[in-house]
């Protein structure tokens, strides 16, 4: 099944879920409405023609204050069909919340924790959403465009 086929499959099953596509990304990406992300993932995961059994990567992205959006990007791979697909979801930057896909792919656990750690994106339904790279008592989320590093960490100056 090719990209267009996957797109029409989702549109048929879940009308309103696909908001558009991103031709420039590699692999080609579908823009998904954020409330539908779990349903779309579940569909792609179990459908006999797609069977995206592997979540290769999950990343977050901050588009800055002018756009006032954040993104979560899912890179899917289907091992039996050798298919690749990216899903992009746009979130409100002031309140970045999205449903967790940990129930579909176990590997999303740490990937979502990373996105939470570095960008402060909250994943609803994640059972263990805490920082993964930075220490627990770190302040702020460093990959946000407006991040300002703290002056001191444990009494030690941060700046050079």
């Amino acid at each position: 099944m090719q990209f267009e086929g996957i797109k029409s499959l989702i549109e048929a099953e879940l009308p309103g879920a696909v908001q558009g596509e991103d031709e420039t990304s590699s692999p080609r990406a579908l823009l998904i409405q954020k409330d539908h992300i779990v349903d779309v993932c579940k569909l792609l995961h179990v459908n006999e023609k797609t069977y995206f059994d592997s979540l290769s990567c999950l990343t977050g992205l901050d588009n800055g204050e002018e756009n006032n959006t954040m993104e979560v990007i899912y890179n899917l791979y289907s091992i039996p069909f050798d298919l690749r697909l990216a899903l992009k979801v746009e979130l409100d930057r002031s309140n970045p919340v999205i449903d967790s896909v940990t129930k579909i792919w176990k590997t999303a656990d740490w990937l979502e924790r990373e996105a939470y750690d570095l960008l402060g994106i909250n994943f609803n339904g994640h059972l263990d959403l805490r920082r993964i790279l930075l220490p627990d008592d770190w302040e702020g989320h460093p990959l946000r465009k407006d991040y300002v590093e703290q002056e001191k960490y444990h009494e030690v100056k941060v700046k050079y």
Partner: protein
Amino acid sequence: MSESKEINIGALKSGEGGIIVSKLDDLLNWARLSSLWPVGFGLACCAIEFMSTSASAYDLDRFGVIPRNSPRQADVMIVSGTVTFKMADRVKRLYEQMADPKYVISMGSCANCGGPYWEHGYHVLKGVDRVIPVDVYVPGCPPRPEALIGGFLKLQEKIRTESVLRPKALEKLMEKDAV
């Protein structure tokens, strides 16, 4: 030792007496600098150089340097790599767990001053000397094994001039009075 010419080696080997006269300071320093056991831990690519320094080609063992797996048994800590703030707490704790006398070799640019992360590395400690005292800084990114060996030789030089018996407090007092 300077008196070595006067020692009868034959008598020493047979165990028929033989006395070496030395200063306690010299004896202690010689013992300490000849068996510098580092804590076996590495933080980044510098650790790879540390490992190859210990391997057969450079043979760090010939200086009496044998990595130990416990800070309790170690004399020297080689901070080999990037120290993140998360790791800094652990490095400090490891240092505190080491028994005196203890020494620190800061290996590579990252441990010396933050290295390539000095400006934008929000998570990197800008020099390990901000959390623990450092005796020898080894420059390089990463330093070659020769440089690390050089660091050990430098540390040995430093230990050679130490004194446990010298009345340092008295010396300080006399210095003050002299002024």
